[in-house]
């Protein structure tokens, strides 16, 4: 699918969402029944073993392409998801309503070794806040509605379908019937209601709480019947179903007691026995070796099957190994001791590329991701003690000054020298990697020292005899850029900016700082002049960026803690951002966000630099390896990954 074609299709889809209640998934009479030994209760690992030994035990079972889950027949072969269900099969009371994945059918067996830059800290999906733990938890849990990392659109997961009321305030979700947690216990609406009670509990204050609360008020969650749950929002919300992504459904039968006792934040640590935990993801917790690795094993009750009827996942397990140093991580991958590699720098990518064929791995450059780097000036209201910085703010507050700095920066050099060509110069905060929301009107500024000088002259700066820019009072322009000392790439970017700005007559000093000490200055003491930071992530939707762009937002980095918008353009951003949240018309919403991007690009509270490409790699014989720019870039379809080679998994 071409990148250009997609927004159109999305627009069509979103338009469809405005029509009164639309069913997003198949009506149940279209489901194809599946019977077979795999939905019997059996021993804990019995189904898995069955499929591992006889991966093709059910050849030609029924017309597999029963129904395209979401897109009707419009793009045959493009949408990977098919919905398929079962009526009563084995001795179990309720047959499993599987989700049928339309990917290449693989073979069972083998283990995947993944390296992580830091140790995971917890296995608790409610309190988790750090990336390594989230990476480990993600394959052990499942959400009701999922954002497909490849298409960046929502698709059915534990909910096989949902409806949205015309006013956009009520969502009704139909749960998949007969599916089970990894301990064999059935999953139903009670688990959903319990999960949302936990996530929205102010006493626990899960990191997800804020995201779930629309307009600051929690959703009302109601069980309609055993497999139907109804969510009432306080205010209409565009693409409300995106809220459900990565909100892991919790097993009520395991967690209710600890929750009532108020001990939920302490539950499910790395030291917890695997038998005390249960999830709905393709894998379940197996073992933890402190400081070294966490192992997950196959969940035999997982609710997806492939077109041939084989139960997913294919892999017997996933091992997350802690390798704290990026270079060591790259070396491990090169040596064949790790199977996939994500988040690597362009320099290391270049080195790996040379031995791609001889060492049996493939590397992929997915193009720009959602992350971007930017330079920003301290525009905070400063306490009186910081006169020196406050004096410099008289320059920083001038829009033309920021535009001049932006014009003086040679982004192409940054791309070429620092990122080896594997990055994209940026004009705004929505990178080209964000398929749905980029504003194509914005073009990255080409470097022009002439334009920079002209802008400075218009803003009342002039050139001194010593080729230095001085302000109207004759004060030479010089400032420092704070940058994280542990980020060599951004330090290189800073060195290039320093030289670029030196050429237009500004003296810049680079101040490498330990990362948290730097954040302390940015968020607490405001003792800095300018800073260089990478930002990004989220799911790409404007709603996930609210905290950055609202003038009162906790990540409104350049000017925090505003009671009232400090500038007219910040006021306009506030207005537009607040309005788009409840716009149910997708194209209107896109127009609104385009406007925000334009305001930002003109006023440059952030001076956008580049968006690094997402660079990943995997062993050549890893099947269904389809990395995406959204997190988790290589493991988003871990349930579909399989080893092509007959021997199971990587050689020891």
């Amino acid at each position, binding site marked *: 699918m071409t990148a250009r074609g997609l927004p159109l299709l999305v627009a069509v889809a979103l338009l469809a969402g405005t029509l009164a209640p639309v069913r997003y998934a198949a009506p149940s009479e279209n489901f194809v029944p599946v019977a077979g030994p795999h939905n019997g209760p059996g021993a804990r690992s019995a189904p898995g073993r069955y499929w591992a030994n006889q991966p093709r035990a059910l050849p030609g079972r029924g017309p597999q392409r029963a129904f395209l889950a979401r897109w009707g027949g419009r793009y045959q072969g493009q949408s990977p998801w098919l919905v398929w269900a079962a009526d009563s099969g084995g001795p179990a009371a309720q047959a499993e309503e599987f989700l049928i994945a339309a990917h290449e059918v693989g073979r069972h067996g083998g283990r995947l070794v993944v390296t992580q830059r830091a140790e995971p800290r917890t296995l608790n999906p409610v309190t988790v806040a750090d990336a390594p733990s989230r990476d480990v938890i993600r394959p052990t849990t499942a959400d009701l509605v999922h954002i497909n990392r490849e298409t960046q659109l929502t698709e059915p997961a534990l909910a096989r379908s949902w409806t949205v009321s015309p006013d956009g305030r009520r969502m009704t979700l139909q749960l998949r019937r007969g599916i089970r947690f990894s301990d064999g216990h059935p999953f139903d609406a009670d688990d959903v209601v319990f999960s949302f009670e936990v996530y929205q509990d102010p006493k626990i204050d899960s990191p997800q709480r804020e995201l779930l609360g629309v307009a600051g008020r929690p959703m009302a969650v109601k069980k309609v019947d055993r497999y139907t749950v109804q969510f009432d929002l306080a205010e209409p919300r565009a693409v409300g179903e995106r809220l459900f992504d990565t909100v892991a459904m919790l097993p009520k039968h395991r967690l209710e007691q600890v929750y009532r006792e108020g001990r939920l934040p302490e539950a499910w640590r790395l030291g917890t026995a695997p038998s005390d935990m249960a999830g709905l993801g393709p894998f379940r917790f197996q073992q933890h070796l402190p400081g070294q690795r966490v192992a997950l094993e196959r969940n035999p009750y997982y609710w997806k099957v492939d077109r041939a009827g084989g139960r997913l996942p294919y892999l017997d397990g996933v091992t997350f190994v802690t390798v704290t140093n990026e270079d060591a991580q790259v070396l491990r991958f090169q040596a064949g001791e790790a199977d996939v590699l994500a988040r690597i720098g362009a*320099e290391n990518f270049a080195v790996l590329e040379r031995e791609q064929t001889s060492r049996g791995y493939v590397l992929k450059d997915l193009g720009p991701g959602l992350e971007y780097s930017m330079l920003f000036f301290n525009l905070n209201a400063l306490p009186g003690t910081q006169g020196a910085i406050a004096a410099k703010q008289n320059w920083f507050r001038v829009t033309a000054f920021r535009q001049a700095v932006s014009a003086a920066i040679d982004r192409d050099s940054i791309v070429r020298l620092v990122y080896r060509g594997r990055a994209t110069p940026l004009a705004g905060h929505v990178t080209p990697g964000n398929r749905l929301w980029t504003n194509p009107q914005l073009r990255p500024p080409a470097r022009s020292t002439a334009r920079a000088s002209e802008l400075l002259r218009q803003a009342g700066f002039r050139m001194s005899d010593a080729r230095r820019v001085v302000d109207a009072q004759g004060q030479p322009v010089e400032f420092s850029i704070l940058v994280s000392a542990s980020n060599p790439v951004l330090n290189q970017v800073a060195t290039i900016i320093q*030289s670029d700005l030196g050429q237009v007559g500004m003296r810049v000093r680079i101040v490498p700082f330990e990362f948290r000490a730097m954040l302390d200055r940015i968020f607490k003491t405001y003792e800095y002049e300018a800073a260089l930071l990478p930002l990004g992530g989220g799911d790409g939707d404007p709603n996930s960026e609210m905290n950055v762009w609202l003038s009162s937002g906790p990540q409104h980095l350049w000017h925090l803690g505003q009671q009232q918008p400090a500038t007219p353009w910040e006021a306009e951003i506030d207005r537009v951002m607040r309005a788009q949240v409840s716009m149910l018309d997708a194209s209107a919403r896109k127009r609104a966000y385009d406007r925000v991007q334009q305001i930002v690009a003109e006023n440059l509270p952030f001076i956008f630099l580049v968006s690094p490409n997402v660079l990943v790699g995997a062993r050549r014989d890893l099947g269904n390896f389809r990395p995406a720019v959204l997190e988790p870039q290589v493991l988003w379809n871990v349930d579909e990954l399989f080893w092509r080679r007959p021997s199971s998994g990587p050689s020891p």
Partner: protein
Amino acid sequence: MSRPTRGGIAGMLLAGIYASAALAGFLAPYDPIEQNRGLAFAPPARLRLVDASGRLHLRPFVYALVPRPGTFDYDEDVSRPYPIRLFPEGAAHRIAGLIPSNHHLFGVDDPARLFLIGSDEYGRDLLSRLIHGARISPVAGLLAASLAVSVGLVLGGVAGFYGGVTDQVLMRCAELVMAVPWLYLLLAVRAALPLALEPRDAFLLVIAVIGTVGWARPARLVRSVVLSARTRDYVLAARSFGASDARVLRRHVLPEALGVAFTQLALLVPQCILAEVTLSFFGLGVGEPLPSWGNMLAGVQRFHVLASYWWMFLPGLALVPIFLIYYAVTDVLHRHLVLRAP
């Protein structure tokens, strides 16, 4: 008799290094912070005598480098040789910090560049950076190491000589210094300093930090020697003649410990230069774009440099002979001051 001569040579070499630091602007062919972005990661220049058409030149020359698009690989443009010239004009500098000049010892005509040991990721001349780095690192290293060792010598000497409570207090202090995780405390140190550090302040700071942290090891080693030295017969004799504590300590006891102290000094100088690598992680080193050996070394400790750009390690290699010279000098000083001491 050959030994003093060797020491003399080492001493002269050492003096030469410090002198060349003063002349860095002249000796270095380029401005150390000038970026040639078209020539990033250029390999060391190939000096030639025979040109592409087989003609012999009397003056060594180089060809200009042309980057292959999209890579950091370079081809030589053989259409025109650029002979190496003495005293060409280039970036302005001051000889010994005083005399303004824009002549350099050697170089080639523009647009070619003479990167004798290659260029770094911004196309800056590594040789020029190495030479300019000599203005900072060897001085800082020597001063910091001397500070640490002299404090260690005095405190260790006093502790060993007096023993008892003095010894216990001093040694517990040494243990405290060694026990504290300095990486953590450096965060507090950096926070207390102004936002942007002038290079000179950073320089003094590096010396102060290393001096404060580094005295404990030499102190313990010196103490161990002094402990037995103070019971030597001649020391006891000197004391029985009524020599003062200070005199006995200075004349008879500390010289015994000088051997250990010099060994420590010779070992600490390289460690101090390398310490800047760690300090730069806390924003305490001499920052970009100014070159110092510490930040040059910090920049190359990466896998891709190790795998692709071997010449980036040449400046690091240059440290080896310099450290050897330090050893030779401390050896000689040791020999003169200790072995000929009474």
